[in-house]
């Protein structure tokens, strides 16, 4: 069970986040929507425990996986090492298989800098999926991909959620992605940002 209770978050003088509280149950998927610059990434960093300079409390499990808004790979290690170093338990074969799933199976021995940006993003996704996390955090995971590839990634995410059952929190601008993952939708609004009025979540719709 993940419990988020942020009272406020300031950068210097300016307050970015107001009171934001919600919970995510095991196996549940939550999507955060909101315009650019509202504070979605800030919220995710707080939830992930990267940013600790805020008022409030966050309860989270230990086994987490994150997909940042930018790929954030180790440019000096090969593509496959970017999986195996982060997940020491992952065998090389499993790593290769994971790379193949995201469509960069033939790039295992290149450096990340030799991938296209879309391929780097998929590697970051592979890294997040490979660990069978209890809590999956993703910041706009499917942008910069063509429609077909984005669909593949979305399907992969669905499979992971079905098989491993992590709590999932992700940011997106595309409402259809949230719906595809049957996510509860939280919308950030205003300055400082707070959760908008409860929207009909994808789950409740049918």
């Amino acid at each position, binding site marked *: 069970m993940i419990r988020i209770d942020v009272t406020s978050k300031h950068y210097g003088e300016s307050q970015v986040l107001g009171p934001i509280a919600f919970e995510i149950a095991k196996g549940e998927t939550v999507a955060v929507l909101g315009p650019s610059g509202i504070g979605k990434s800030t919220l995710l*960093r707080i939830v*992930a*425990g*990267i940013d600790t300079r805020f008022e409030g409390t966050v309860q989270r499990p*230990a*086994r*987490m*996986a*994150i997909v*940042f808004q*930018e790929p*954030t790979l*180790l*440019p*000096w*290690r090969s593509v496959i*090492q970017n999986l195996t*170093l*982060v*997940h*020491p338990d992952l065998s090389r074969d499993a790593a290769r298989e994971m790379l193949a799933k995201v469509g960069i199976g033939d790039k295992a021995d*290149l*450096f990340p*800098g*030799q991938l296209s940006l879309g391929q780097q993003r998929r590697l970051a996704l592979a*890294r997040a999926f490979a*660990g069978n996390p209890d809590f999956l*955090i993703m910041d706009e995971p499917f942008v910069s991909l063509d429609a077909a590839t984005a669909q593949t990634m979305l399907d992969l995410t669905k499979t992971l959620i079905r098989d491993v059952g992590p709590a999932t929190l992700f940011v997106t601008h595309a409402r259809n992605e949230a719906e595809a993952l049957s996510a509860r939708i939280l919308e950030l609004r205003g300055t400082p940002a707070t959760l908008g009025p409860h929207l009909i979540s994808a789950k409740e719709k049918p």
Partner: protein
Amino acid sequence: MSGRGSIPAASLFGLLILWTVAATLTADPQVLPQPWALAGPFLRELQSGDLLYHLGATLLRVIWAFALAMAIGCALGLVMGRFEKVDRWLDPWLVVFLNLPALVLIVLCYLWIGLNETAAIIAVTLNKVPNVTTVIREGARAFDPNLDAMARVYRMSAWTRLRHVLIPQLAPFITAAARGGLAVIWKIVLVVEFLGRSSGIGFQIHLYFQLFDVAMVLVYALSFIAVMLAVEWTFLQPWERRVRRWRVA
């Protein structure tokens, strides 16, 4: 490989020509002998075993001091660069030790520990550690916070983080410290040897300098330089090429 080797060779040859011209202009073999005038003394010292003996003594000191100074300096620099608090406390010490004249440290070491090998190596190490620390600290301050966050969230082990996240970022700073470091260490070893050792290149150089025998001074100085060139080409540069591969790919 042959292409790679030929430019350095040509470049060294150019240096040799420059030297010849300078020596010809100086026209005083006692001030600057011609390069080939060193062949005789060099062979003599080589055959008598003196050259190898003193070179060996110096190299041993350099290796010890280098290993110690790099290890301590990197650790200190890493800690000071990452933890602002520690840095605040240790920074004034760093500046003091950085600027403490080699002579003072060397003499104090000799007086405390005695005129022996341990004192010599400790003196050199103490002289060099602050230099390594300052360079590495700058590197540690420039770490990418995003990679840090990634490593934290994925709970990478301390060792993996050091080896695969931090050290690769430090690599240019480590090479800079190592390369400059070897040079500075060897300059200090010279002083150490001349102040209180009975062997080593520094000891010989000062001896022959007292005798105003520039040829022998150069023979000893260049022998060490030759070793350093070999180290550059067989260790440092291949290592550098390896860790830089990802940049050029």
